[in-house]
């Protein structure tokens, strides 16, 4: 019993990261609004960044900046946190912003074409424009297409 509690207490960062990831995933799947989907993607990405930064933290460690640099005496007994995941995430943040910018540009283009950013409205408009897009219309055959 205390083993389980130890895991819950000692690794609470990881529990929060999984929670945030699931919140973002839910928004990406279940929300109809396209901007809400991009917000969900952002939350998902930052949750993964939180996982990497939690991974790199060392108990009793300090920021990975050389102590006693600039010609001073080098301090040998300092514990640093692991800087490699930091560098990975620094790159990933820039990639995340680029992804968001492309997604938002696509949303503006979709809005100019269909006049809405709601997924179901866009799908309905698309079915009206191209009847063969809809599986239902394809099953009903030529009569549906002819009536358009």
């Amino acid at each position, binding site marked *: 019993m205390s083993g389980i509690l130890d895991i819950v207490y000692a690794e609470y960062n990881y529990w929060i990261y999984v929670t945030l990831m699931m919140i973002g995933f839910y928004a990406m799947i279940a929300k109809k609004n396209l901007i*809400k989907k991009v917000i969900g993607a952002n939350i998902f990405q930052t949750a993964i960044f939180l996982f990497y930064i939690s991974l790199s933290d060392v*108990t009793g460690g300090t920021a990975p900046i050389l102590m006693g640099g600039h010609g001073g005496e080098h301090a040998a007994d300092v514990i640093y946190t692991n800087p490699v995941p930091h560098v990975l995430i620094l790159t990933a943040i820039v990639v995340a912003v680029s992804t968001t910018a492309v997604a938002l540009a696509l949303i503006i283009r979709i809005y100019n074409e269909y006049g809405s950013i709601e997924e179901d409205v866009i799908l309905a408009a698309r079915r009206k424009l191209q009847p063969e897009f809809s599986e239902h219309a394809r099953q009903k055959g030529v009569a549906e297409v002819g009536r358009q």
Partner: protein
Amino acid sequence: MIWILDITMLFFLVVCAIAAISIKDLLSSIIILSAYSLIMAIVWVEMHSVDVGFTEAAVGAGITTVLFIATLARTEGRSED
């Protein structure tokens, strides 16, 4: 790592994430996402990851919010869900 600050900030993080995806007004949603990014930057600085912290504060809370608001100005500001 100061664990009481860490737990408080992580709690606010989850609250902000849930609020950002459940509010119908998109401008409020984007501002809450910006607050979420800022809290995330605080968590990272507090975990001794200073370079990632200030990059997130500048890029995540700054540029992303500007991009979202620019998109909102060209589309509609109301969400159905």
